[in-house]
């Protein structure tokens, strides 16, 4: 997933990064094919260039290596809100057929949830305002549901045209990267369809781990396996990170 996410980033893109897989993927991309990738962490660092993975978005290495450190209100108001960020990453506890994302509660009753999740964070406005969004999530029927229990971040609502009706100016989740492959919205319906499988993964496995009768794109691709240099760069990044701890 990390290598696939890294590959989705283009050199020169401005990328809004959270801790965890997105941060790893973005820093891997910077060390492989996208040295000019611009990392914006929501804690207020524009153009951070860490030489290891930060432990949290408050990590001093982000401030030390950034082109500019700004306040949190400025991050959201001057940089995210006007659509200056090309790519946003989201994780998800649940994602549905139209790529709506839930990171708030599992269960029907918001006041008495089955599982209380961390909440929205920056996600609703990342989903609304980035030029496009990449969702990274492990594939399971628990995560891939017909309809999310709670819409924390809007993907495509109930289908095509909903983003426009809601006035959302960013492009929405164009790519959902899982441990099995890649799903993307059908251009006609905005429903997520399987567009690529990772090496060694069969489409039946994807179907079995998706909570709705998922469609498969006609031009189903297979993702290239991680190259030795990608794996080496990833290993080096993790080593440098562990040395710091």
């Amino acid at each position, binding site marked *: 997933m990390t290598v696939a996410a890294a590959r989705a980033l283009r050199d020169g893109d401005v990328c809004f990064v959270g801790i965890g897989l997105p941060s790893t993927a973005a820093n891997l991309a910077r060390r492989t094919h996208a040295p000019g990738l611009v990392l914006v962490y929501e804690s207020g660092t524009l153009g951070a260039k860490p030489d290891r993975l930060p*432990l949290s978005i408050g990590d001093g290495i982000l401030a030390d290596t950034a082109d500019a450190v700004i306040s949190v209100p400025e991050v959201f108001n001057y940089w995210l809100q006007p659509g200056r960020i090309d790519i946003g990453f989201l994780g998800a506890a649940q994602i549905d057929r139209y790529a709506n994302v839930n990171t708030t509660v599992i269960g029907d009753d918001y006041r008495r949830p089955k599982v209380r999740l961390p909440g929205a964070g920056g996600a609703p406005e990342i989903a609304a305002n980035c030029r496009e969004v990449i969702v990274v999530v492990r594939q399971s029927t628990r995560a891939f549901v017909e309809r999310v229990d709670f*819409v924390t971040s*809007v993907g495509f609502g109930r289908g095509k045209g909903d983003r426009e009706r809601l006035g959302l100016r960013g492009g929405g989740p164009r790519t959902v990267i899982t441990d099995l492959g890649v799903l993307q919205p059908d251009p006609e319906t905005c429903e997520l369809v399987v567009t690529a499988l990772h090496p060694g993964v069969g489409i039946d496995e994807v179907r079995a781990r998706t909570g709705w009768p998922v469609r498969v794109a006609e031009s189903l691709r297979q993702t290239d396996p991680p190259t030795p240099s990608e794996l080496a760069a990833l290993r080096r990044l993790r080593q440098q990170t562990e040395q710091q701890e």
Partner: protein
Amino acid sequence: MARIASLAQAVSEVVHDGDTVAFEGFTHLIPFAAGHEVIRQRRRGLTLVRMTPDLIYDQLIGAGCATRLVFSWGGNPGVGSLHRFRDAVSNDWPVHLELEEHSHAGMANRYVAGASGLPFAVMRGYVGTDLPGQTSNIAPITCPFTGEVLTAVPALKLDAAVIHAQRADRQGNVQLWGITGVQKEAVLCASRSLVTVEEIVDELDPRPGAIVLPTWAVDYVAVAPGGAHPSYAQGYSVRDNDYYRAWDEIGRDREEFNRWLDNHIFNPAPGEVRA
């Protein structure tokens, strides 16, 4: 002019039962020592406000100080969930915790409105999500010039704000640098404010990226070296990652948590200055 006082005195002057209070810090410079002092002083009925409630809020909630939480993301950053927070929300232990939930952008703008002396802020956000269905504190607003409909959120009004900074001078001017989050806004939103600092110095020599809160905008300054432990205090200490990982175990279990409270907050070992 800020008064320079001991941590215990400053906390007792600034944070009272029933207050709406923010201990801010966007994963950097989190005022742990002040939070622990609030637990020690057995404050009750607090409405806790913060963008990123983490361990110190888990501790305050588990200790029964809070009955309400206004927030946008609650977790153990880089580790996982906050178990005391979950236990309070799901099982009312030790007391019921009411939630008011926003996005980061919404909370940041609520702080900005409060700091600006305005009753509300305007933003692009929340539209299409289920968040507005859970609070009356998100409302549509129409641009009087274009007719476009945007989102309004009310200003945060705090009784008290508590932050940690690197340094203050003897006049009480406060300097912080690195990731400064919404700390300035939090102080400017509050009727009373307390800044704990790593040290007090004769002069605040200018530093790249530093912001200064002038003494006349701060009520209390208290020296609390290591007061952000286990979080970062850039230029002084890095994150104690083991503490964050260990908290997952401690916080998971009520007994374990109560033992931690007894041993580290109410009866700390002699010389245990932090945590």
